[in-house]
């Protein structure tokens, strides 16, 4: 039996594979077997190290040495120097860009771990269905220390000093919101957790509730103590059955332990939580609509003020916070405002969870400090663009946000920078697009979503977005004009100004930001009636190159609508008026005689 004393880990992420990591692995194995070391050193292919810029990466265990930019030719040296003689190969070590010193040990490599998990601290670590595991990780210690050692004012002070801002999209300072709700005078107040999470592609809140439900329960109780509420409500969409289930288990366990209920930890403070189910309407994530929905009314927004902090659920002062906002509270109390405020940028503190999706290699859930750049997120953590394609844009903020181009790749992510760049933080959906995505179609996609989700209460949103959508439809079908582009912009401005709630006010953002950053692409659609990325079917034109066509009749036999004609062994041609742009001929042709233009 082989008893390995050393392991060589070769990165097998897509980026590194493209740069020959397979060959590196093979060279290691061959060289080791030549030296008779195969039984002592094992070579293993791993997933992405999240450091693609410096790939291919090789890590040697147990001494944790991290080599970068390794080529297949370097293997002999690595084997002979590092493995046989135990001397590190200096020239392949990572050089710290700031100190210019070579880094010998991967453990000391801060740069490599771009992610910091605060809101997700327990996700993937504890068993979410076992309260003991949460308690073992300092769970409910924050609640205990607030109830028994701090006044509500002191607690609110900590949250204010930490600089925590709402993670539900708006970025309102959380401590300030609590303070306002505290100051509202009433016999009854409520704490509401917004777990509606309706953005397409977003699953941050779901993952927190599935992976660490107690942190939300604990934070809601702390909030209740601060604002003077003894009742909490979690508004969660019924489409999240697992999250609902885990939350229910967690609430039950907390009650059994006396961490919810009356006289919590002998403090005299009472608090309990109920679950309310949403039917999955995006607009019900808006806080006033959410409150109406909980009251059993139609999920329609109403004008603010009055803000929920003054008059919310059943007309009582109500503090609404997002799931992720709550998940940040216990560590802030435990570790102090200063600790949290030291992470992030000047005006955006702490971390943000993003759901990375789209044309990216490592689709997943990430948590990075505010101020991390988009490039770090997309390339270092996300492992770069799928299939080695070119990055085109990244969409943040969901249907309320915008697309950012590669000019913004080095922008540090925070509330204000994203807003200035024409997008927004939103709740944390991040969808990456490559060169094959048509930006007009993307804008249309988001608008379709808004159209479906608009509650219809006010005309600019209900009718205006419909008109916007019609114009975009026209453009993608090749019937748009240049005037349409101006119309898009004007109408967008009106919708933004005149809509009642955040949904309408932000719905034209995807249109405006693509108009700003990809005007050429819009122009191509209306002027030359072409779609540069080849996504708009109606604008495609299949033609047969006469000199390449051998007259094999394969396309003729496969065209489903009989649009192709021609004699055997002589060039064929496509009748454009009959062609439905299905692309079958293009796929079938063996001689590359058909082009798309």
């Amino acid at each position, binding site marked *: 039996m*082989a008893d*390995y004393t050393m*392991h060589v*880990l070769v990165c097998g992420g897509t980026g590194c594979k493209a740069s020959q990591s397979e060959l590196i692995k093979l060279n290691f194995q061959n060289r080791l077997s030549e030296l008779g070391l195969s039984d002592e050193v*094992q070579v*293993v*292919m*791993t*997933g*992405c*190290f*999240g450091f693609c810029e410096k790939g291919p990466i090789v890590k040697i265990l147990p001494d944790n040495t991290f080599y970068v930019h390794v080529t297949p030719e370097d293997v002999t040296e690595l084997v002979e120097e590092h493995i046989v003689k135990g001397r590190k190969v200096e020239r392949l070590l990572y050089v710290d860009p700031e100190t210019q010193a070579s880094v010998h040990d991967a453990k000391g490599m801060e740069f490599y*771990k*771009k*992610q*910091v*998990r*605060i809101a*997700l*601290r*327990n*996700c*993937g*670590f*504890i068993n*979410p*269905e076992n309260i*003991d*595991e949460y*308690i*073992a990780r*300092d769970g*409910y*210690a924050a609640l*205990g*220390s607030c*109830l*028994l*050692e701090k006044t509500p004012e002191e607690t609110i002070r900590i949250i204010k000093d930490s600089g925590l801002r709402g993670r539900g999209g708006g970025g309102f300072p959380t401590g300030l919101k609590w303070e306002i709700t505290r100051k509202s005078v009433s016999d009854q107040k409520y704490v509401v957790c917004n777990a509606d999470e309706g953005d397409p592609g977003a*699953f941050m809140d*779901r*993952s927190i509730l*599935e*992976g*660490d439900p107690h942190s939300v329960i604990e934070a809601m109780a702390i909030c209740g103590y601060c604002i003077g509420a003894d009742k909490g409500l979690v508004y969660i969409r019924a489409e*999240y059955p697992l*999250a609902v289930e885990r939350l229910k288990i967690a609430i039950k366990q907390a009650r*059994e*332990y*006396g*961490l919810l209920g009356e006289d919590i*930890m*002998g403090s005299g403070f009472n608090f309990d939580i109920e679950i309310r189910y949403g039917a999955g309407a995006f607009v019900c994530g808006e806080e006033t609509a959410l409150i109406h929905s909980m009251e059993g009314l139609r999920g329609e927004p109403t004008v603010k003020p009055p803000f929920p902090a003054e008059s919310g659920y059943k007309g009582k002062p109500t503090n609404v916070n997002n799931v992720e906002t709550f998940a940040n509270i216990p*560590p802030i109390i*435990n*570790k102090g405002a200063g600790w949290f405020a030291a992470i992030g940028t000047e005006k955006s503190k702490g971390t943000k969870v993003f759901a990375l999706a789209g044309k990216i290699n*490592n689709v*997943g*859930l*990430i948590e990075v400090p505010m101020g991390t750049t988009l490039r770090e997120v997309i390339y270092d953590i996300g492992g770069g663009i799928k299939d080695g394609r070119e990055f085109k844009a990244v969409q943040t903020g969901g249907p309320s946000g915008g697309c950012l181009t590669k000019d913004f790749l080095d922008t540090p992510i925070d509330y204000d920078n994203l807003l200035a760049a024409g997008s927004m933080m939103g709740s944390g959906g991040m969808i990456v697009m490559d060169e094959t995505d048509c930006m007009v179609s993307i804008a249309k996609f988001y608008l379709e979503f808004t159209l479906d989700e608009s509650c219809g209460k006010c005309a600019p949103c209900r009718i205006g977005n419909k008109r916007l959508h019609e114009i975009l439809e026209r453009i993608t079908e090749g019937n748009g004009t240049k005037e349409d582009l101006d119309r898009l912009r004007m109408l967008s401005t009106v919708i933004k100004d005149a809509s009642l709630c955040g949904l309408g006010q932000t719905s034209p953002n995807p249109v405006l930001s693509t108009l700003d950053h990809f005007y050429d692409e819009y122009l191509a659609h209306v002027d030359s009636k072409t779609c540069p990325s080849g996504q708009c079917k109606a604008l495609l034109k299949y033609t047969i190159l006469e000199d390449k066509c051998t007259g094999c009749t394969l396309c003729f036999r496969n065209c489903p609508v009989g649009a192709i004609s021609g004699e055997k062994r002589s060039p064929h041609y496509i009748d454009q008026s009959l062609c439905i742009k299905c692309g079958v001929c293009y796929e079938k042709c063996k001689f590359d005689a058909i082009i798309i233009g």
Partner: protein
Amino acid sequence: MTKIKSLADLKQLKAEVQSKIKLREKGDHPENLIQIRVSMATCGIASGAKETMTYLIEELEHQGIDAVVTQTGCMGYCYAEPTIELTMPGSEPVVYGYVNRAKAQEIIEKHIKLNQLVDGIIPVNYKQIDNP
């Protein structure tokens, strides 16, 4: 189940459960204990994490290997689900992606029984806040 009636109760319970979790109730031989965490959020379950977990539990029991298999939330590697984290006694945890039945079997046969790493390791690319 004990009610927590004061902060002191909570602290005491924490101390108890902390050691309990470290030893996972099998206190006698903590150093021989193999721990496996299966990422069971919606993404994991959709890709078959439940089957993987059941298989791991059954197969380990069948082979008489003393191991604790637990579920946990999303580790963030949704592209590589199902993912598991394996901690061998005395070593650092290792995360594996795309763990279907065949991979799980390979991990049991090679990593657990022979202490050899298996292809498909995912390097953990985030920092946990220490002492949350």
